[in-house]
């Protein structure tokens, strides 16, 4: 018997409210509290949206890998759904980070993209790697094989993310700034408050959207189950090929 405790949308309103409050505060702090940076001027305000997006993207990919491991251990479809959702939203956040990064690069360096910069190119490689996730899932018809192969991909790619991050940190930067240097973070106090608020807000937004997507997918699965039940159809789910995981009704 399904209980409300098991639902994906549990605590979703709380997350949504927290996201709205923290993100609004972050934008307010970024524009009215944090000082204007002496070197880059007003364009540095892009930092408060670009860096949190990039960090949350990488975090989302790592969580995709963690849920991939959980799926390979448990075989439970909810872990596959969590891995899928984290990677799916990670790719969307990654697009946001890339576009805002390009705009910031144009404002600060006068160029939309710098191919010599390891930070930029490595981030692009990670993005391109994860864009193959959806076609990979779509190419496999059998839902169980699809979930298993996708989990293996999520784990391998998830390991690549921190390795890549460390490699880039060890490389000599050309022009891309290091916000957190090896000797600690290099932000002045007021900027740090605005930045961490933006980071928490973006992370909350990521969690809210992931929970909302999982809840939406579960609702559609429940609807399909209800249709089969009313229509007297067999319990076999619709066999149409798709990239999204089959969601078990809870």
């Amino acid at each position, binding site marked *: 018997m399904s209980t409300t405790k098991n639902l994906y949308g549990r605590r979703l309103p709380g997350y949504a409210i927290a996201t709205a409050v923290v993100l609004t505060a972050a934008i307010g702090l970024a524009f009215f509290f944090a000082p204007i940076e002496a070197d880059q001027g007003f364009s540095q*305000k*892009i930092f408060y949206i670009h860096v949190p997006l990039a960090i949350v993207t990488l975090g989302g990919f790592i969580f995709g890998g963690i849920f991939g491991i959980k799926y390979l251990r448990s075989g439970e479809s909810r872990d596959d759904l969590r891995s899928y959702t984290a990677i799916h939203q990670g790719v969307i956040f990654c697009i946001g980070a890339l576009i805002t990064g390009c705009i910031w690069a144009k404002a600060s360096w006068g160029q939309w993209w710098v191919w010599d910069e390891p930070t930029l190119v490595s981030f692009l490689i990670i993005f391109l790697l994860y864009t193959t996730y959806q076609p990979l899932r779509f190419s496999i018809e059998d839902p169980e094989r699809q979930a298993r192969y996708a989990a293996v991909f999520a784990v391998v790619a998830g390991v690549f993310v921190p390795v890549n991050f460390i490699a880039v940190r060890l490389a000599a930067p050309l022009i891309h700034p290091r916000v957190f240097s090896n000797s600690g973070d290099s932000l002045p106090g007021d900027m740090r408050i605005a930045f961490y608020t933006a980071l928490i807000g973006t992370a909350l937004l990521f969690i809210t959207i992931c929970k909302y997507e999982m809840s939406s997918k579960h609702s559609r699965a429940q609807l399909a189950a209800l249709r089969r039940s009313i229509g007297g159809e067999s319990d076999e789910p619709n066999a149409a090929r798709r990239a999204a995981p089959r969601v078990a009704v809870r």
Partner: protein
Amino acid sequence: MSNTLPPNSGYVAAAYLVFVAILLVYVVIMAIRAARVERELTELLAQSQERGAQTAQNETSNA
């Protein structure tokens, strides 16, 4: 108070607009899906009511 915008403010606005635009596109997609779920639920409810009425009619005629 000065009426002039700080230099590069267009780029800053563009970056934040990208963020808002991505969010709005997501909201639109989810709204379309929610509307589809609502429509399908309405169809199912009508189907269920029709079936209930038919069963009641059959029971009446059998009695």
